[in-house]
């Protein structure tokens, strides 16, 4: 009994400590007439902040990609930057960190991830003088009705096009056999990768003489972006059951997939992984010069962040708009260098990319008859 009390006491204390540590919630900006200065001072210098999505800044994926874009802009334009990692993955945690950045004078905030939708919805009215960029989502109040404020830009990517290229490349490389897909959570961006991947494989089968199959049981959403062990075990099971290449769009779960593929490749088995978001070739290295990353279905998250900062500096920030980064404006694609792909396959993939750009090849962003 005494111990139970003790444990409860400790829990309360830790909780109190955490709450105590949390910076003050920003007081809502008074919507009424503020200090009306007849001659407004020149706009302050741009300071760019970022709040991270699930995972850390070094996730070699979504957070890191965005952050690298911001850093590149900072280097080119000489800006002050900062990122904050929220204590949890809910709107209130996100709002706290956004408030902290605003309080610290950051007047442009970039949030990578669909989970920021409701936080941005509130923040854009709370801080009307701050520019917001949300990647992979649009602000709404929980009712899914888009409400992009004048100080906000929402950016989407055509993940299905990137997935298509990855699928076609994998099919052409393997020619026959099974491929699989492991996704993180079943959210739009991940689903689009999956559907695009399946269409890419189907296209290669129909037009490029391959016969690669995707079995329904080999298309999986693991359900998290962090369960490394589950990723490793799922990949092991798929490879055991004859899958030769797995497209992993799953954050930390993908780390487990890559690790399993590395172990098998070191033992001499031929297995492949198609990477996601950024060029993951170096993640897959299991010996010098050898990697199990066949290619990567990339999203130009860094490019998007960079472009928005450049626009903000040039005073052409497209506030209120929903932008789409697609093959057409080089917002998605596969890496320029794919050491594991033959030159002929690379050329063919580039050809497909060009066909997407001029509209002769259209990748559907709907599930239709595709698996999951």
């Amino acid at each position, binding site marked *: 009994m005494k111990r139970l009390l003790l444990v409860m006491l400790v829990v309360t204390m830790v909780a109190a400590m955490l709450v105590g540590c949390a910076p003050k919630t920003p007081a809502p900006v008074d919507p009424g007439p503020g200090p009306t200065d007849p001659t407004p001072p020149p706009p302050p210098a741009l300071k760019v902040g970022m709040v991270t999505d699930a995972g850390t800044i*070094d996730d070699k994926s979504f957070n890191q990609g965005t952050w690298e874009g911001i850093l590149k802009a900072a280097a080119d334009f000489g800006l002050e930057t900062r990122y904050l990692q929220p204590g949890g993955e809910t709107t209130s945690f996100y709002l706290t960190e956004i408030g902290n950045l605003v309080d610290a004078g950051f007047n442009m905030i970039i949030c990578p991830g669909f989970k920021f939708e409701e936080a941005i919805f509130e923040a854009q009215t709370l801080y009307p003088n701050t520019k917001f960029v949300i990647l992979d989502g649009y602000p709404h109040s929980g009712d899914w009705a888009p409400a992009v404020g004048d100080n906000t830009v929402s950016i989407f990517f055509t993940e299905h096009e990137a997935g298509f290229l990855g699928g076609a490349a994998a099919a052409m490389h393997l020619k026959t056999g099974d491929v699989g897909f492991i996704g993180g959570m079943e959210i739009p961006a991940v689903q689009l990768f999956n559907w695009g991947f399946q269409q890419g494989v189907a296209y290669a089968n129909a037009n490029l003489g391959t016969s690669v199959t995707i079995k329904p049981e080999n298309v999986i959403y693991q359900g998290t972006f962090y369960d490394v062990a589950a990723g490793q075990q799922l990949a092991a*099971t798929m490879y055991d059951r004859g899958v030769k290449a797995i497209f992993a769009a799953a954050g930390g779960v993908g780390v487990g997939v890559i*690790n399993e593929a590395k172990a098998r490749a070191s033992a001499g088995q031929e297995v492949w992984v198609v990477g996601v978001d950024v060029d993951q070739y170096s993640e897959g290295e299991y010996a010098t010069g050898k990697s199990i990353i066949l290619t990567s279905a990339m999203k130009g998250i860094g490019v998007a962040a960079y472009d928005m900062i450049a626009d903000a500096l040039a005073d052409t920030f497209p506030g209120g708009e929903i932008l789409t980064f697609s093959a057409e404006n080089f917002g998605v694609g596969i890496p320029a260098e794919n050491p594991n792909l033959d030159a002929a396959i690379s050329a063919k993939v580039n050809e497909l990319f060009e066909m997407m750009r001029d509209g002769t090849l259209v990748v559907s962003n709907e599930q239709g008859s595709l698996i999951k």
Partner: protein
Amino acid sequence: MWQLIVQIFPYAIAYTVPLLITALGGLYSERSGVVNIGLEGLMVIGMFSGAYTISRGGLPPGSAVWVGLLAAAVAGAAFSVLHAFACVTLNANQVISGIAINMVAGAMTRFLARNLTGSGNIQIMRGIQRTNIPLLSDIPILGPLLFRQTYATTWLALGILFLSAFVLFKTRYGLRLRACGEHPHAADAAGVNIYRMRYSAVLISGALAGLGGGIFLTTVSGEFSGTAGGLGFLALAALIFGQWRPFGILGATFFFGFASTIANVSQAIPELARIPGIVLKTFPFVVTLIALVAFSRSSQAPKAAGEPYDKGKR
């Protein structure tokens, strides 16, 4: 069905081993009377030291892994000195010290990783290879289950298990250590140095938890990212479920390992996908709860676990 079991058995064992070794660490500590909630943090320390040594140590890949595991164990032991100092020398509350270890470990290792390598995640190029053991893997039934696709660390962990069972229950050191956890005043009266015994037990516990983190790194995750995914807490649960006995722990960790593996891979196996994922995923925890309730009357917890040793108290 048999095919299925043969297929997932090696993965279940691989998942079990880091848990087992960490829970054994907890066993030493608690048997000596020091509750160690810091197992999770000590695993993270092990993962970090292992990953850093393997990726930056400049050793050839074959031996780097083993040096990395050694580094993980040494770092875990070194870090657990903090816990021992707080709990044994300063008589601090053991639960609070353990929580502090958990909080410090994650933050400190990530900070170090960022400063030493420029990234909070450290990848290793090559972990431990799975191998089939010659001859033994051809034994019917047992061969495919136990001797195919095994990691060398699995045998190391089993070796440590048997050694621990022997040390704790068949040697003088073990008897004294257990006496410190049951009735330290009696042990003290018999001439045992309680402080020294508890220090040694906490250090062993740190070394084993660090090694557990290192094994998780080299077999499952392949990357340090500042967390052990709650495995340390699961090890603590396994320790209680296993009733503070080495082979009880083996059973409990294997149960967790097997059940979690089935839950994880069920999505990719049509025969298992018919069972809802939520049922499979919660199964080990529901069973643990039931077991804890059922065993609560006959709990074998060391009687003095959690109590700082006060010479003057009666």
